[in-house]
């Protein structure tokens, strides 16, 4: 995780399947401060339901901690994976980094 002035960034890359489940679970930790989190999945080339479920749990923790989260996804495979799982509207998903940051830094 890297943190600039006001947004924590968690970036994952490559093929995220069941073989990397433990790594994904470890990566998706909330920052200790209540800092908005950009979950950068733009370099993820493939994902399976391991990631979906980890995202789901991460999102729940973030909501409980009043932490705003944006998910950056570029690859269509991952966008469609969310839709197939019935979670197309479950997370604030952005295809552009600038739009995700704007969402995270807006008031309220």
């Amino acid at each position, binding site marked *: 995780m890297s943190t600039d002035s006001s947004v924590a960034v968690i970036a994952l890359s490559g093929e995220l399947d069941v073989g990397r*489940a433990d790594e994904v679970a470890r990566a998706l930790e909330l920052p200790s401060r209540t800092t908005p989190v950009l979950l950068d999945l733009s370099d993820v080339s493939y994902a399976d339901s391991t*990631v979906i479920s*980890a995202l789901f749990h991460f999102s729940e923790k973030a909501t409980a901690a009043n932490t705003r989260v944006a998910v950056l996804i570029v690859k*269509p495979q991952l966008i469609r994976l969310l839709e197939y799982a019935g*979670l197309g509207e479950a997370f604030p998903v952005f295809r552009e980094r600038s739009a995700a940051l704007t969402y995270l830094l807006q008031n309220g």
Partner: protein
Amino acid sequence: MGDVAELRVTRTAARANVRPMRHALRSFLEALELAPDTIDDVLTAVGEALANAVEHAYVDGAAGSVELYARAEGDAGLEIDVRDSGTYIERSARVGRGFGLRIARAIARNVEIDRSRGTRVRLSFDVIQRRRHIRAVK
């Protein structure tokens, strides 16, 4: 009826082996000249079946094997079997398992599960033969 293309890959049931099995299937689907989005969708559906299989395939506590068998035949479509040698036990839930079958069913035309000897998941995908190109349709 067109030519029949087949792929058979068997590996030890281990989470790390899902990836090479998926890569073998990708090469097979690329050789069929399926559309890139179709290939991604098939890999997504079969990836879920493989992820479940590596966790089922245990016999008396030892890792068994997982077999991937794919068959494409002209207008007859694409059929993919994921078979494990284990006895079906609800092991400690892998993160993501709850979504796996839902995802596979959203993509494949049909998902059939047979637990009579180990577990065999058969995923069927419709394909349309277009000259040299085969495209899956929902």
